[in-house]
């Protein structure tokens, strides 16, 4: 028996995940998503043990290539890789070679020459991760590209919902706030609909993308109507530069009409749960009382983040060259 089999999270490799990269939720089938969620459930167990280390990625190199600063996503991927035994290197490119004029492709080719097995990429431009994936030989995970996709966030949100509600099928999920600029919203819309949830987008029209109804979501510009009968209220972060008159007039007005406080939460179902991808702007899109309250899943989302990333790494590891092989 190969040592790696003994240390996989799934005792027998019974799952099938037919993708070399994870570039987005789009393109994943419902079974693909369910496979990842089941692996992630197991990873939660692994992470809750004293001995958290597995050997799935032993001898593998994982590079976290972040063109945009990130604390939680980067550390979550780092921890996930380390728990599976990979050698993890973090590269914050925002402050290094890109400033010196190196292009995205140059950076990718340079890293590729170092023979990594997995590259986790975040970039401020939509589509940048896809471009990079076409140029390198290893597996690529999208950790967020512009306002396009953030697949591991959607997976961790789904895992959190499933573990708390027991299902996703048939739930009504209200995604509220700055949908226009949110990659989290796009990935969630695709994933939650694939698993049978009803998805709504709620926010001022200036923050709702044109034509989003064509994705099959319902849109609301009024929180009272948008939250009615919702099982899950998912708040999105409003970037500071969009608060003062460009997309919304002011923080005060935004909080008054769209910030989630106890009163607005009371418009949703009595057992509705609150989520936020973080980092939160307290007093802008969410009130502290709600963020820290009994119905908040926000901290649990962080824990599920590590588990989901372990699951994704394990699933992609299937497609890495075998031990002892050469590339």
């Amino acid at each position, binding site marked *: 028996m190969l040592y790696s089999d003994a240390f996989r999270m799934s005792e027998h490799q019974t799952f099938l995940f037919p993708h070399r990269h994870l570039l987005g939720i789009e393109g994943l089938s419902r079974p693909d998503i369910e496979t990842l969620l089941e692996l992630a459930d197991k990873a939660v167990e692994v992470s809750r043990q004293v001995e958290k280390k597995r050997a799935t990625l032993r001898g593998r190199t994982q590079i976290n290539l972040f063109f945009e600063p990130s604390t939680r996503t980067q550390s979550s991927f780092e921890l996930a890789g380390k728990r599976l035994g990979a050698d993890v290197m973090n590269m914050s490119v925002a402050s290094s070679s890109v400033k010196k004029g190196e292009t995205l492709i140059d950076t990718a080719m340079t890293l590729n020459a170092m023979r990594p097995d997995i590259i986790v990429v975040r970039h401020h431009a939509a589509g940048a991760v896809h471009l990079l994936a076409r140029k390198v030989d290893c597996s690529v995970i999208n950790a967020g590209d512009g306002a396009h996709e953030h697949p591991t966030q959607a997976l961790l949100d789904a895992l959190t919902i499933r573990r708390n509600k027991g299902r996703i099928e048939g739930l009504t999920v209200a995604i509220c706030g700055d949908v226009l600029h949110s990659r989290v919203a796009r990935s969630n819309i695709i994933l939650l609909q694939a698993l049978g949830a009803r998805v709504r987008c709620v926010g001022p029209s200036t923050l709702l993308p044109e034509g989003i109804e064509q994705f099959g979501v319902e849109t609301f510009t009024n929180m009272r109507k948008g939250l009615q009968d919702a099982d899950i209220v998912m708040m999105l972060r409003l970037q500071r530069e969009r608060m003062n*008159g460009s997309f919304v*007039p002011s923080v005060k007005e935004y909080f008054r009409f769209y910030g989630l406080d106890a009163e607005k939460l009371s418009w949703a179902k009595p057992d509705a749960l609150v989520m936020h991808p973080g980092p939160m702007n307290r007093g802008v899109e969410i009130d502290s009382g709600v963020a820290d309250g009994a119905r908040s899943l926000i901290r649990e989302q962080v824990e599920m983040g590590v588990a989901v990333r372990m699951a994704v790494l394990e699933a992609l590891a299937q497609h890495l060259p075998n031990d002892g092989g050469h590339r």
Partner: protein
Amino acid sequence: MSAFLPPQLFHNARIVDPATERDERGGVLVRAGLIVDVGPHLMAGSGPDGTQEHDCGGHVLAPGLVDLRAFVGEPGAEHRETLKTASEAAAAGGVTTVVCMPETNPPIDEPAIVDFVLRRARDTAIVHVHPAAALTKELAGRELTEIGLLQEAGAVAFTDGTRAVTNAQVLRRAMTYARDFDALIINHVEDPDLVGDGVMNEGARASLLGLHGIPREAETVVLERDIRLARLTGARYHAALVSCADSVEIVRRAKDSGLKATCGVSINNLTLNEIDIGDYRTFLRLSPPLRDEDDRQAVIAALAEGVIDVIVSDHNPQDVETKRLPFSEAANGALGLETLLSAGLRLVEAGQVTLPRLLHALSTRPAQLIGVPGGQLSAGKPADLIIVDIDFPYVVDKLKLHSKSKNSPFDEARLTGRVLKTFIAGRLVYAYDEQ
């Protein structure tokens, strides 16, 4: 207090209700500040016991006027006009609801200023006053104001007053945002770059006077753009002032295609033309400028037809400091509240517009646009009423005007028809005194 007033019967009147086109002899019964009955059966002695009777002397009894565009100097320029003096001028002109523009100092761009204006108006004004709030912060055309909070505070429309929002992206976002609150956006359709140094209508007259002209395209370019953005966003859009035939065509086309956009016209552009500027009369320096006679006839026809929705006074008090200057250096603006109806009646007298149509554009339609209950003579509506002698000839004397400023474009003009009495919720706030 009005709850304790006895019932009031306005009888022996020509009742003109522009909302229903009713125009017949009869009366109006009022109780507790509200109209309770209207019709030919309401004659002297027909009211309940204790009714207080007002004999209208056969004159016109109509809903008070609603003016969507008045500049008041409060706060910040109280030497030109206060809410009190503006409201007195309004009452004397038969205007029972005034929408004041946000170009004050400080501008009406936050809820506290809306609240201030409403409180001052409550304490000092004798007619209804509703503030229009700024559409962009500091009227600078860059950042949206708190449309939702301003609306909750009592703002009835959003506009940068005499300034056009020139940045199309800003206007698009404002329209998109305002739609969520069903807020009315009013834009001044005049491109400041095309206006440039212009001070009057571009053409032979300006050339003769040696003044820089303002092309009609300064208006049509902005109007065309705004209409397209209104279509894109679905916002409630109102072009503050149109002044020329080309603009009328743009609005007509938009309306024919089903767009809900509306527009207004200044009483000045309906009743005066560029020739009236004569010998550099700065009281006729206006924005938009007075156009030529063909344009004037075009806007009158558009009003008669309903392409133009509302008539505004564009009341803009200016003192000698800003008006007793060479034409090219003087400020824009003219008084309008007090002469609004008399000037408008010129069009009725000339047979170009019917009286109900004129009053519709002066009361019913503007009230609808800002969502206030005036402009109708029917049961349940507030008894904001005017009694008008439409045949009363007089010569305008600026010294007798109620405004603090005296820049009337109709000074020494002969007008026919004037307001005899004005009532707010059944209470007399103005009575014409022949002295």
